[in-house]
């Protein structure tokens, strides 16, 4: 139980995927203009991450380890992610067309979100068991959601702020992202 809590805390805050490991920066900048699509993006990513970690753990354990094919890890995990994203895409389109339109290109781009492949590769590296893997994937997603929602909140306020002309747009976004990362670095050593 304590172990699970530590995994959770570590993935959400201390080793936050976006702000400490710098994975999944593309949607972090791309979908963080408003809070509600950012939250939806975070939830979609969390969902994919959780499922990916479960499926890729099974594949790694019973197929790749069993047949001594560890060198196929990256390829097969990408296969898993691509298929799951397809599923999520169909699911989102079915239940909420406006959400599907709001996420736009970033929904299929979850496929190439390195944070997800990162989760799959990390959980093999850290030799987690099945339950731990699922918790790890889920908390990595929660960490991603946390980061992207904080970023969206700041950027919503930033619209009203008096930013110098040459800092407007991408420049100030990068600076804000950097400050956030610095803040999250402060958690290192907590666990």
């Amino acid at each position, binding site marked *: 139980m304590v172990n699970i809590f530590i995994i959770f805390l570590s993935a959400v805050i201390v080793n936050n995927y976006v702000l400490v490991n710098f994975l999944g920066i593309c949607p972090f900048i791309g979908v963080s203009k408003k809070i509600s699509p950012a939250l939806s993006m975070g939830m979609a990513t969390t969902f994919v991450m959780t499922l990916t970690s479960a499926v890729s753990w099974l594949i790694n354990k019973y197929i790749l380890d069993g*047949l*001594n094919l560890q060198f196929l890890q990256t390829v097969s995990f990408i296969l898993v992610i691509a298929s799951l994203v397809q599923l999520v895409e169909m699911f989102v389109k079915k239940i909420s067309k406006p959400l599907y339109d709001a996420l736009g290109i970033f929904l299929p781009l979850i496929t190439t979100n390195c944070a997800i492949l990162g989760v799959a590769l990390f959980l093999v590296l850290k030799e987690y068991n099945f339950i731990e893997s699922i918790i790890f994937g889920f908390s990595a997603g929660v960490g991603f959601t946390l980061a992207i929602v904080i970023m969206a909140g700041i950027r919503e306020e930033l619209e009203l702020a008096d930013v110098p002309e040459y800092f407007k747009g991408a420049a100030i976004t990068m600076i804000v992202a950097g400050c956030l990362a610095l803040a999250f670095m402060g958690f290192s050593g907590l666990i």
Partner: protein
Amino acid sequence: MNYTSLVYAVLSMGGMGLFFSILITLASKKLHVEEDPRVELICDLLPGANCGSCGYAGCANFAENLAGAKSQLSDCPVCGAEAAEKIAQILGVDVETGERKVAIVMCQGGDGVVKKKADYEGIQSCIGATFVSGGERACSYGCIGYGDCVTVCPFDAIYMNDKGIPVVDRVKCTGCGNCVVACPRNVIELHPISHHVFVLCRNKDSGKNSRAVCSAACIGCRICEKAVDGVGFTVENNLAIVDHDKYTKYLVLPTEKCPTKCIVIVGEADEA
């Protein structure tokens, strides 16, 4: 060389690929969303400027509502006759295309024509100037001249002339009405393209006062009204009004008689 691991690799990757493709095929059947194929066809035919004058969030949204019979094709003032006909065919309805309307700027009081009452150095927009005593020009009815209408025009159909008065390109203008909404002085009006004679002034002050601020203002002298025997021109509130239904250009042209030349023939040459 170890051929077994090669075989295993091919088999396991192929197997996984097959498994996931079957899964996705099943899911796509299960989660299939009925999409009206007409939506895409209509969307291609619509202007695609997303100007919003139909009242929906862009052309794609309007197309969905058209296909769902929730809105009328005539809600889109921008759509040309040819495209409207094609869309009507897709929808299986009759076209009701009214006469094309274009915007017209009802003011001639550009720089050098209208008196200047102050120096304005604030935000260079008409709406901004409205909050600060209405900009530089002395006329409180006419164009302010910072080009809010030019900014909002999705079709590049308005430009500022050298006197700082917006001019509408009657060929490019689609009549979407964005400029009409944007103008804080309500100087821009939409008129059917067949209307050519306009009183380009909105100043309702008495002749003395309006002449004092602008040399192209309508002073309400009634010369036009007398020239056409009251058919087509009337003067109300110190401002001449054209009755486009009654006035024909074969009557005496008040354009020549108007002492301030505020009655103008617009755009007859290019589309008569």
